[in-house]
């Protein structure tokens, strides 16, 4: 087990720069999730850590060892692939023992290690089957078994759950989390699914276009996004990003938002030097759906709730909650009501804004205004 440090890492394919100076660190035993839309460079970063791609510049350290130029098998890592990458010509047993065989570990020890892993993952009955005879979930387990048996310092997962159906995905997610807490190994996990990121990670790194946008705990990423991209990417349904104008009234800063028809609402804004710099200009007001509720559902611990009448156009019951759609700042915003809240469609209904959760962004730079 070891920490992982990535320092000013760049990677180019020919003239195309895919990673543009990544600095990232995960402590020993941590669970780092790399998340971002497809093409953001997260898989390339993982491959660089694994040693499957050569880095162009920068440094990767596992523990205090610089692994630059080291063959993947010597970096003391294990990897689980999106397609599981099970060797089709070998049995499950062969798949798990292949690495040990290559390293020349003797048969008895191999057998012991296989048994141990098979017990842990409950795949004992599958050992003599070929991958083609396994279901998706079973393949997933075998792929993890193959990685586990190495007892690596760092586990790498490349979108391991994306080929599973929804139910199985939830199960496996739990299983991975349990394995992590049991073994305490450092994990780097790539996914484009932000739910996975939030549930699994101790640290999330959001990537876009080869840049690291933000790295931090799930809570930080969720509640304190540094820019519009992170805010928009994390969370489902995603954060409402509402165009508004910052004005000063009676010495108080407030934002004005266009509502239904000619109506508009205004909400107070924090008075900071940064905010003041945007006075009388456009700002993007970000607020998560769960911070826009029916007044009865509002968070009672929050010190700052503002309630405004908004025009409800559509409601979408989702079992535990009901989503209400209201036009704000020229687009549909989602508010999250209690399931049994009364909603009258086509009429103005009070919505409580939990302003402690509100964030503001500069529409030009897309960065957070603190």
């Amino acid at each position: 087990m070891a920490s992982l440090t990535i320092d000013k890492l760049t990677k180019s394919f020919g003239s195309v720069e895919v990673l543009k100076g990544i600095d990232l660190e995960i402590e020993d035993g941590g669970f780092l999730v790399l998340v971002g839309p497809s093409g953001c460079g997260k898989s390339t970063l993982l491959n660089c850590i694994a040693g499957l791609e050569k880095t162009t510049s920068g440094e990767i350290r596992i523990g205090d060892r610089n692994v630059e130029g080291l063959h993947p098998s010597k970096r003391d890592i294990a990897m689980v692939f999106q397609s599981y990458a099970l060797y089709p010509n070998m049995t499950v047993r062969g798949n798990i023992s292949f690495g040990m065989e290559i390293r020349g570990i003797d048969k008895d020890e191999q057998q012991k290690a296989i048994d141990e892993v098979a017990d842990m993952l409950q795949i004992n009955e599958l050992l003599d089957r070929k991958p083609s005879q396994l279901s998706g979930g079973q393949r997933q387990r075998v792929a993890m078994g193959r990685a586990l048996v190495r007892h690596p310092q760092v586990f790498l997962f490349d979108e391991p759950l994306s080929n599973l159906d929804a139910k199985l995905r939830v199960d496996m997610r739990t299983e991975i989390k349990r394995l992590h807490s049991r073994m305490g190994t450092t994990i780097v996990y790539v996914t484009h699914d932000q739910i996975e990121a939030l549930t699994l990670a101790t640290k999330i790194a959001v990537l876009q276009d080869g840049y690291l946008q933000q790295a931090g705990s799930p809570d930080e990423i969720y509640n304190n996004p540094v820019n519009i991209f992170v805010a928009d990417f994390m969370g489902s349904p995603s954060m409402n990003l509402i165009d508004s104008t910052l004005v000063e009234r009676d010495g108080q800063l407030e934002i004005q938002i266009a509502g239904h028809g000619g109506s508009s609402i205004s909400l107070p804004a924090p008075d900071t030097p940064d905010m003041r710099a945007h006075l009388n200009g456009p700002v993007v007001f970000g607020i998560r759906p769960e911070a826009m509720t029916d007044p009865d559902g509002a968070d009672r611990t929050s010190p700052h709730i503002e309630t405004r009448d908004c025009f409800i156009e559509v409601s979408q019951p989702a079992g535990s909650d009901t989503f209400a759609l209201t036009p704000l700042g020229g687009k549909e915003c989602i508010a999250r009501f209690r399931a049994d809240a009364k909603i009258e469609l086509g009429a103005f209904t009070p919505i409580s804004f939990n302003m402690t959760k509100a964030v503001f962004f500069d529409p030009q730079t897309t960065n957070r205004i603190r």
Partner: protein
Amino acid sequence: MRDRLQDWLPRIVLAPSFLAILVFVYGFILYTGWLSMTDSRMLPNNDFIGLDNYVKLFALKHWSIALKNLAIFGTLYIVICSCLGLFLAIMLDQQIRNEGFIRTVYLYPMAISFIVTGVAWKWFLDPGIGLENTMHQWGWESFEFKWIKDRNMAIYTIVIAAVWQSSGYVMAMFLAGLRGVDNEIIKAAQVDGASGVLIYRRIIIPMMRPVFLSAFVVLTHLAIKSYDLVVAMTGGGPGRATEVPATFMYSYTFTRNQMGVGASSAIIMLIMVFSIVVPYLYSEIRHGEKNR
């Protein structure tokens, strides 16, 4: 150190093949290019004469006949083989009983060289002993099939035999392509109410594009190299009505002691081939890169 070796291994592994191709193909092409500008006759020599051989070559009626024949033969051969191959593959894809047997029958000609079948074809096409004679014996007196003896038609008999040899192979390629088509697409089309013929015409055949391209490469390569076929069946005759560039090249290089002219014809042929094939290869390789 060992990792270093692993880094270089791919190049080291590829090197022997690459060097072999470089020397045995491109080196030889350069050498032929040089020969084409020398006064080589029976054996290669180094008396440089510039482009005289090319001038001579294009003045030869023989050569223009060979080129014309290749154009006729190549076009018909490629088109008929592709169409027939596709047609047979579609027929065979209709849950046919004994498919394995029929497929093998269609495929086997590719296994046999024309040194073997040339005589049989020659006999078969010969009006005196072959098909025409048989038809006459069976009572169809007016039946006529004298193409191989007719200098305007003989090249088409070469096409018949060549199609016989390779269409089965093309059929196998298309069959493989058809078997690879996703059933859901067909089901979707059926739900849309498309008829069988329409499904093939509008959906399946357009999906065979990669197969058409592979078939094109294989067939072009076979068409250009068609040599045994012509020698075994007509020897270039009647007269020189079935002369093709490959036979021309061979006879000028080896039997007419005009190696220089032979080499220049080879170079012209290579230029023609490359101008057809290179754009295709280029797009294919580029395409492949993008997919990865």
